[in-house]
């Protein structure tokens, strides 16, 4: 007996993500899904934003890692509310995990929620978490060819952060190739050069977060 199911494999995740989105919208909280390879500097960017933003926007954080609470501890040390999710070895976050984590955050005290996904350039891309915007982080030590090798991630993001710019003198990073690839994959996407170490570019990163938070606020009013 053949049953014509015609059902999206992602159906359950997509529905849970819409639930997350609705809860955040109702509270006027913008949501950003940060994706990168392990060690590109996602947590460092969150720390830099918390240290430089002077409390505006009010940032909450969900940390996704296969194991440990190390990243949550770093974020908590900056004074931000944070929930650590451990995926138990899992290679990406899913909407059900984010939905559960929301219960541990006071959304009324936030303007923006940063979700640090598990370090991985492939799997997180497939899972909507309920975010408004996506960010890809690449560090110069990973090489200029990463957008070309992982096109799907770079096609679907609203911001590309090129981190560890302070290390450019020490690596053969072809900036022209990198920018050209990103632009061809995702015309018009914003690319920010940042060094969490020297603080260069952190202002622009914070400005982008403020603008993202303001858009969500407008959404709530309208």
């Amino acid at each position, binding site marked *: 007996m053949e*049953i014509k199911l015609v059902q999206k494999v992602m159906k359950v995740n997509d529905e849970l993500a819409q639930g997350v989105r609705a809860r955040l919208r109702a509270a006027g909280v913008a949501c950003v899904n940060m994706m990168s390879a392990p060690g590109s500097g996602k947590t460092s960017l969150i720390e830099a934003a918390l240290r430089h933003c002077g409390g505006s926007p009010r940032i909450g954080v969900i940390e996704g890692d296969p194991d440990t609470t190390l990243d949550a501890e770093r974020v908590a040390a900056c004074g931000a509310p944070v929930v650590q999710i451990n995926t138990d070895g899992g*290679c990406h976050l899913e909407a059900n995990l984010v939905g559960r984590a929301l219960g541990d955050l006071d959304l009324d005290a936030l303007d923006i929620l940063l979700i640090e996904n598990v370090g991985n350039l492939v799997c997180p891309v497939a899972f909507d978490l309920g975010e408004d915007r996506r960010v890809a982080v690449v560090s110069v030590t990973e090489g200029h060819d990463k957008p070309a090798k992982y096109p799907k991630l770079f096609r679907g993001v609203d911001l590309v952060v090129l981190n560890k710019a302070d290390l450019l003198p020490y690596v053969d990073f072809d900036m022209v190739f990198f920018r050209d690839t990103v632009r061809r994959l995702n015309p018009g996407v914003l690319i920010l050069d940042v060094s969490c170490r020297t603080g260069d570019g952190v202002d622009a990163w914070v400005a982008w977060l403020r603008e993202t938070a303001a858009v969500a606020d407008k959404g709530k009013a309208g």
Partner: protein
Amino acid sequence: MHEFSLAERILESALGAAAAHGGLPVERIVVEIGALQQVVPEALAFAFDAAKSGTPAEDAVLEWRETAALIACESCGSEFTPEDMFWMCPSCGAAGGRVVRGEELIIQSVTLRETLLETREVEHGN
């Protein structure tokens, strides 16, 4: 390797369909995989085989159909299948575009084996 989480989802749906039809064993599942999904069909089938054991789908075969990508140019509106990762419109040369097809990840059909029912009928007949 998110193929494992996808395989679990597919298994759940198939078992749900089987449960809705008297718990018949699952024989075959057909999934449609868009070319723009970063899913390796062989890896998905492998993950499915690992997930299915001990369930009413343990003898099931996972089959797949691949759908080619189709992109609509946002400058001139023409539709094309991209030749590489850069979606360059062959008509006007614009980069990027909107996905018309290729993002599918759909369980198209589940085939159940009806032998169990026949066996039961025979048993009742005795």
